[in-house]
């Protein structure tokens, strides 16, 4: 018995040594920003580079409406990650169905949280798509402009945030947001909104909704990195923003935005 054990452990030692060597090889292959790894690959892999200086980031969000399948995983992930109140949404998905008669049918049952049950609309649907929405993290943002106590503010990284310890709960920012992405949290009586999962991106993680999107319809990246996929899309593709006539300068860009979108 004892001899057998000794033989086995020798074999196991060799196995472990081989596994260790293979593991070390894998570790060396994991992208390391400091080693000159391309940002493109890091963001593609669902991570964010965390620069030594946190001020060296400026983020943007891209929604590819042609890829969204309306599964609602993003809405569920957001709810779990951010503990949003029952009736409100930091992100949601809308379904558009446009018939040959020019009628536009829009719905977002429970914000798309439970995906979209089949819906029959009168007439022949000739165009249909899903449209994810979040806070647009505008540069010329009406919500931070109107906040009387600076509780709503823009972070140096481009995220529009709310300091819940300062918010007086007047609701002016909720009224000012043209995209209706803000609400008064009934539990805290303060304004609440999408933060791009600020607690995650500060740790080099993607926002929850981006992480779980199975079709990569939601993208997030650093505009200060030259080879960021998000920067590449914004720079080279035809992107659009919601309600451009209001000059809020959103930093949530849309690919394939339809003229019917509200």
């Amino acid at each position, binding site marked *: 018995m004892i001899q057998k054990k000794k033989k086995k452990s020798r074999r196991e030692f060799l196995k472990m040594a081989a596994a260790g060597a293979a593991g070390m090889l894998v570790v060396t292959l994991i992208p390391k920003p400091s080693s000159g790894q391309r940002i493109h690959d890091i963001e593609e892999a669902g991570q964010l580079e965390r620069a030594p200086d946190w001020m060296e980031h400026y983020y943007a969000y891209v929604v590819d409406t042609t890829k969204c399948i309306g599964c609602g995983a993003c809405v569920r992930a957001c709810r779990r990650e951010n503990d949003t109140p029952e*009736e*409100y*949404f930091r992100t*949601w998905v*809308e379904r558009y169905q*446009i018939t040959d*008669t*020019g*009628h*536009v*049918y*829009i*719905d*977002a049952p*429970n*914000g798309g949280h439970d995906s979209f049950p089949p819906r029959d609309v009168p007439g022949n649907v000739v165009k249909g798509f899903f449209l994810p*929405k979040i806070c647009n993290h505008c540069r010329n943002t*009406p919500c*931070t*402009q*109107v*906040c*009387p*106590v*600076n509780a709503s503010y823009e972070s140096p990284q481009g995220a529009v945030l709310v300091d819940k310890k*300062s*918010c*007086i*709960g*007047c*609701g*002016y920012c*909720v*009224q*000012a*947001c*043209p*995209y*209706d*992405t*803000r*609400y*008064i949290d009934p539990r*805290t*009586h*303060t304004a609440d909104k999408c933060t791009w999962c600020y607690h995650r991106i500060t740790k080099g993680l993607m926002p929850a909704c981006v992480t779980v999107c199975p079709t990569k319809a939601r993208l997030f990246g650093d505009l200060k990195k030259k080879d960021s996929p998000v920067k590449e899309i914004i720079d080279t593709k035809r992107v659009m923003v919601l309600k451009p006539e*209001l000059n809020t300068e959103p930093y949530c860009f849309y690919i394939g935005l339809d*003229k*019917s979108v*509200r």
Partner: protein
Amino acid sequence: MIYTEFSFPNDSHIIWSLMIVTYPYISGIMAGAFSIAALYYGFGMSSLRPVSRFSLLVSFSFLSCATLPLLNHLGHPERAFNVMIMPNHRSAIGGFGYIYMVFLTILVLIIWFSYRDEVIRAANAATGLKKRILEASLLWNLNSDSQTQAVDRIVVFYLVAFGIPSMAVLSGYVGFLFGSLKSNPWWSTPVMPFVFFVSGIMSGLALVTLFYLYLGWFGHLEKSPACLRTLGALLWFSTVLYIVLEAVELLYFYYESSDAWFVISTLLLTKLKYSFFFLQLGIGLGVAFVLLSAMFALRVDETTFAKLAAVASVYILFEVWMMRWNIVVGGQLFSKSYVGFREYHPQWLDQEGILAAIVFTLLPFLVLYIVTRLLSVHPLPEEDEMESAGSPRVVIE
């Protein structure tokens, strides 16, 4: 494209409800009452003398209660003072605390100088603790010779001169808060501050007119047909101005026929059909305008004039409240998708419900009752002496 109804998921609640309806109503009455005092003290409109000091007290009573509905509305009223100590200078509300305090200070000073003579007389006649309190309220200066009185009147004149723009800013301010929101087409119009200001003036004039008739009937104030006619004329003029502003606003939306008109027209023809066209414009504004016009066009006798003025004032007070409702609540009855609508039915016992709104609307009347127990509603007595003392008043007969 023809849209079927759709509201954004977060558009499930009305955020600004009865408290935000009540605040501009109270502050509007404050402005209207002050404008009467301003016309007398600042512009020497002597026919308004019987209500000159009383309207100051009305203005103060409503101003002192104006912020209470706002505090009741806030999610964190304990942080309200942050608006004063750490304001966002880019925010329209950011300046509210300062504007409010400036006007409150001016109004209190005007009242203090206007009542100084009387308080001095009361202090001289009093004894004990009451005397000490009155002396303290006068800052221990009991000098009331004719020269001091003349200085007091000049100070009041200049305070009124500063008070008029402060009052206009405070009253029109709430209109700016709404008018500057580009997210809401029903609110987003440069006319909005003027609509709020003029309607506020109307409501203040109407309430002071009602009080004047009431106090006159019970002999607390001298009955002056000239005063009543002036109040009536001011009411008629401000009503006409208000009609023009409302018409300009609606015609502008209609003629521009932008995306906004789709939601505004739908809003007016569905959710606000009854409250806007029937209650505000028809019952409130229409009846009041007809009555006010009849008062002058038909050359009625004094008694009929007074009765018509009283009824018209009630309708105007109703119209202005409906206007506040239709603007504040009406602007939230549609989603920012511009193709979805919702209902709002205020509850009686909510924190911002009907009972709270009634209490906050009636509270200034309680304050006024207390204030008029302490200070006389009668005008300053020595008008002739005042003019001979070199006051810079300009007399308009």
